[in-house]
């Protein structure tokens, strides 16, 4: 586009008033703004000694966990709804015949690639037995990519770690195994 193109609208700089042109008011305004902020309470959180306060852990979308039922077994029934719902395709389930009488299948392996996960919470929404939930743990880190692929044991350990602070979100938590009947 050339500078003399008809499509270009040339804007004239608006002229300031007398007060604005004197720069004095703007000078004081800038100085008072910085001084006000200088003495204001700081917003920095001294992590990791002080943790960020999460307003409502129940709706926070952090690291996943696999919930256990009353008998300490994994609640998941390997229905693949979460893996299907996942837009990032980060959930991988290998189903096997359940050793327990209250359900047909259970996950032999259940892995989530936390590096691929976008923490959208669709898996949690899709789960019919509330087996997968997102916790309020937000600082997950690892030394390798392999370390960031969470397997079933790791996901269950996240549950063990967070169950006291964040109880399961549904009534179905109680009782033997969800859809027992």
């Amino acid at each position, binding site marked *: 586009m*050339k*500078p*003399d193109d008809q499509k270009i609208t*040339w*804007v*004239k*700089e608006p*002229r300031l008033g*007398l007060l604005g*042109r*004197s720069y*004095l008011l*703007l*000078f004081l305004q*800038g*100085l008072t*703004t*910085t*001084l006000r*902020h*200088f003495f*204001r*309470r*700081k*917003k*920095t959180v*001294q992590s990791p000694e002080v943790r960020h306060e999460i307003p409502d852990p129940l709706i926070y979308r952090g690291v996943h966990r696999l919930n256990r039922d009353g008998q300490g077994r994994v609640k998941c029934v390997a229905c693949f709804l979460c893996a299907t719902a996942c837009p990032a395709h980060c959930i991988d389930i290998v189903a096997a015949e359940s050793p327990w009488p209250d359900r047909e299948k259970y996950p032999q392996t259940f892995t989530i690639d936390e590096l691929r996960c976008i923490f959208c919470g669709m898996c949690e929404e899709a789960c019919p037995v509330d087996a997968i939930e997102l916790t309020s743990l937000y600082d997950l880190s690892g030394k390798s990519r392999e370390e960031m692929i969470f397997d079933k044991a790791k996901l269950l350990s996240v549950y063990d770690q967070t169950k006291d602070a964040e109880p399961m979100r549904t009534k179905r938590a109680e009782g033997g195994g969800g859809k027992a009947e």
Partner: protein
Amino acid sequence: MQPILEPLMKIAVLVAGLMTAAAYLVLVERWIAAWVQDRLGPNRVGIPLTKMRMFGLGQPIADGVKLLFKEQLTPSHVDRALFLAAPILIFVAAIAAFAVIPFGSAIPPEAFPTSWGITKPVSLEIAPNVDVGMIYVFAIGSIAVYGVVLGGWASNSKYSFLGGMRSSAQLISYELPLGLGILGVVAVAGSLRLDIIIEHQAQTGVWNLFTQPLGFVVFCVAGFAEAARLPFDLPEAEQELVGGYHTEYSGIKMMMYMVAEFLHMIAAAFLIVILFLGGWHLWGLTGSGDATGWIEVLLRVIVLLAKVMVVILFFMFARWSWPRFRFDQLMDIGWKVMIPWGLVNFVVVAAWVEFGDQASRLLRLPGEWSMAVVGWPALLISWLVITVLDPTAKRSDNRSTVQRP
């Protein structure tokens, strides 16, 4: 021994002090930047290998070590000799300017034990009694421009080049108001020597700020521009020029640029304090004339350094208080506002030097105060005239008037 040993000791103390000051001013700058932005800033680095944090006072050492051991990247497209020379040049020029800047008044020979054989007063200035004092500072300051221009040119990159071009135009434009700003001070004190300028203010008890506010404004603005501090930091302009003239520099060369920048700021603060804020003088505390003993010498050094620190803090606050000027605005302010103001100030001062005695008698005001009577109205009227006339206004849009074939 005194003629050789004395300057060497002063140089050692000064260089060590300035390097430490520059390093710690980086920390102060970061603290102020953080506090102004509702953050806490660096507060973790303390003594290495211990848990002690000391409010982050170890940060400058960590920064220095990091920059020293960082990879020295020299791009293949640069002019090697000039690329290397530029940071050395700017660093040497920045530190050389301190040779004539007094850090206090002279220590009288009686203050030392007689066995030391000191007969002359020890001036707290590396090169005492240099009659061209101010001119020397200006000459050295002008050499510093070469560091920026050469760095921008040798880097052979468009960002560095733009930064170098901008700074050459800016620094050359603002030398004039800087010179005009001190002209009034020199005319009143009758000397270019910085210690005599302080002595003059101490004897009359009237700082030049009170008598020549216009000169103070001009000198301050020009000082900000010469130190390339915001709102006049166009040579660097991180957001537009990716760092400007030092875009291509890394490691210790980058550190030399950074230290030189802080030294410029310290030098500008010293000059503002010495020329306009009374140097080491504070009413009822430091007296005037030669110092009589250690206590008075120390008091004067402390007062001077405290004033310098206040000015430096203002420099740092200014950085976050006002947005950067556009380049055409910068040039307009330099040529159409600051130079006329500087000239007006000098005319007022020159008139006072000529007719001041009569005016003092007429107004029944002691000595210097009669100058404030003309100095402040001069400031107000000049400011008002510039506001009303608005010489920096854009009369048209920014369309290029160049006819293209």
